[in-house]
């Protein structure tokens, strides 16, 4: 356990080495949120079943949930695979996934801390009317949906990281497609998914992406029935389990064909 705590401490220290990088990354998040905020401020959200306060809460929750779910360092693993640097980690007496999780936790902690600061500042500047959830049960379900989202995202990232085992040059391309295109657009990070017509929206809910951002926010806002909330949690949980199993199998198969090219 000590060795993972050391990884945790080193990763935490590393976050403060590249301060400018980190500040720029946070600034980019804020810019994206501002677009979202001003867009929904200039249209009537009731067309889509939202009140002004619930859509503004959606915007502010996005900052926090992106920090909890989407902040990760594990995107560099595909580079380790294609460059052969993965061998360094495989030779060490550490579980690779535990090592990655130990690196991700400080990243998430710092991102969450900054996101809370940003939410406070933006709240003071923009003065939106926000919805505050007071139902403890709904808050517990929200936390559960976030844990599920974290596992789904980690599995998705690791699955895309596995591609270079078979095609070494493809790593960045797959990451671009999965994290920048599919996750950003289909998770609800760019817009609430219920903007889409109902059949398309229902179809999207069969994929794992909405369970990353959209479902946790819906769970917090409590805009759907309890049955629907439980259904969302169960489907999200099933996706987390399925993706975790598939990711483990793909990773193990990948290790069998791994040739440490470049080493």
């Amino acid at each position, binding site marked *: 356990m000590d060795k993972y705590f050391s990884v945790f401490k080193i990763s935490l220290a590393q976050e403060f080495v590249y301060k*400018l*990088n980190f500040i*720029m*990354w946070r*600034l*980019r998040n804020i*810019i*994206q949120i*501002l*677009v979202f905020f*001003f*867009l929904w*401020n*200039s*249209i*009537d959200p009731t*067309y*889509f079943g939202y009140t002004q306060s619930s859509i503004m809460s959606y915007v502010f929750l996005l900052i926090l949930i992106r920090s909890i779910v989407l902040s990760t360092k594990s995107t560099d693993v595909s580079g380790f695979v294609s460059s052969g640097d993965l061998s360094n980690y495989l030779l060490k007496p550490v579980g690779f996934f535990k090592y990655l999780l130990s690196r991700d936790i400080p990243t998430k902690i710092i991102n969450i801390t900054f996101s809370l600061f940003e939410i406070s500042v933006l709240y003071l500047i923009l003065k939106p009317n926000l919805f505050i959830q007071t139902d403890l049960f709904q808050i517990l379900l929200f936390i559960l949906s976030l844990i599920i989202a974290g596992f789904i995202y980690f599995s998705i990232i690791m699955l895309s990281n596995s591609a270079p085992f078979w*095609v070494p*040059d*493809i790593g*960045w*391309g*797959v990451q*671009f*497609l999965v994290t*920048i*295109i*599919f996750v950003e*657009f*289909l998770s609800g990070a*760019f*817009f609430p998914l219920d*903007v*889409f*017509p109902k059949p398309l929206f229902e179809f999207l809910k069969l994929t794992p992406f909405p369970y990353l951002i959209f479902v946790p926010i819906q769970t917090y806002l409590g805009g759907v029935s309890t049955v629907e909330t439980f259904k969302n949690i169960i489907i999200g949980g099933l996706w987390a389990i399925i993706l975790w199993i598939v990711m483990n199998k793909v990773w193990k198969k990948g290790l069998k064909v791994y040739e440490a090219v470049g080493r």
Partner: protein
Amino acid sequence: MKLSVGKNNINKSILNFYARAWLLMAKNSMLSWLNKKESVIIFVFGKVVRYFFYFSFLYFLVTKTNGILGFSANQALFFTATYALVDTISQFLFRSVYTFKQLVITGDFDLVLLKPINPLFRSIAGGPDLMDLITIPPIILVAIYFGSLLDPSLLGVIYYMALILNALLVSMSIHIFVVSLGVITFTVDHLIMIFRDFSSMGRFPIDIYKQPLKGFLTFIIPVGLMFSIPSKALMGIVSPAGMVFSILAGLTFFTLSLKFWQFALKRYTSASS
């Protein structure tokens, strides 16, 4: 008379030289991409899917709300089409800015300075992204389609095309500012991405933003000049004075960027070489 003919010939040969240099760099860029065929397919597919998502979201949004802030659904879609057009052409032309940091931190920029070619030209236009050649034609068609739904006048179309060229000039100026800052601070990567994030605010009419952000997007990073004003010109809501002001602002921005490049170049230390 003789002297001016001679000058014209020199200008022509310089243009020819740079055109050939650009084609050569484009060819090299294409060859390096062709070595990674799988990645090219994924990137092109990703870019197409991204625009498909943009337009689908906006389509469902504005058709249900009948537009944004007084702009009709078709006008709102046209704003996004114009953004996509300028953004994609800029990425196609100025892609080498994304690799500029590496030149500076390794000291390889010395080699660029030693070559008999303008280092600024090499730094911003030295590696066009030929994948965008696949996505530019459909984006032009989308812009023409949504533009035609607005029943523009001939003058509106001429204004639009002139302002798109002006937008590309402004985009080039911003890329020059970014590489200049890169010479001084080595932080090109994030700066260019932050510029792209700000410019993505131009997906929607700039009127949706409130002050002081709107002022920032008008005067500091002229997103309005690049994306909103050309679209408005086609819609017939930019006066001739507004048109002249926009072009003068574009030229001023360009001049300032060149001056800043000269300033930055004098501070290049060649530290890593």
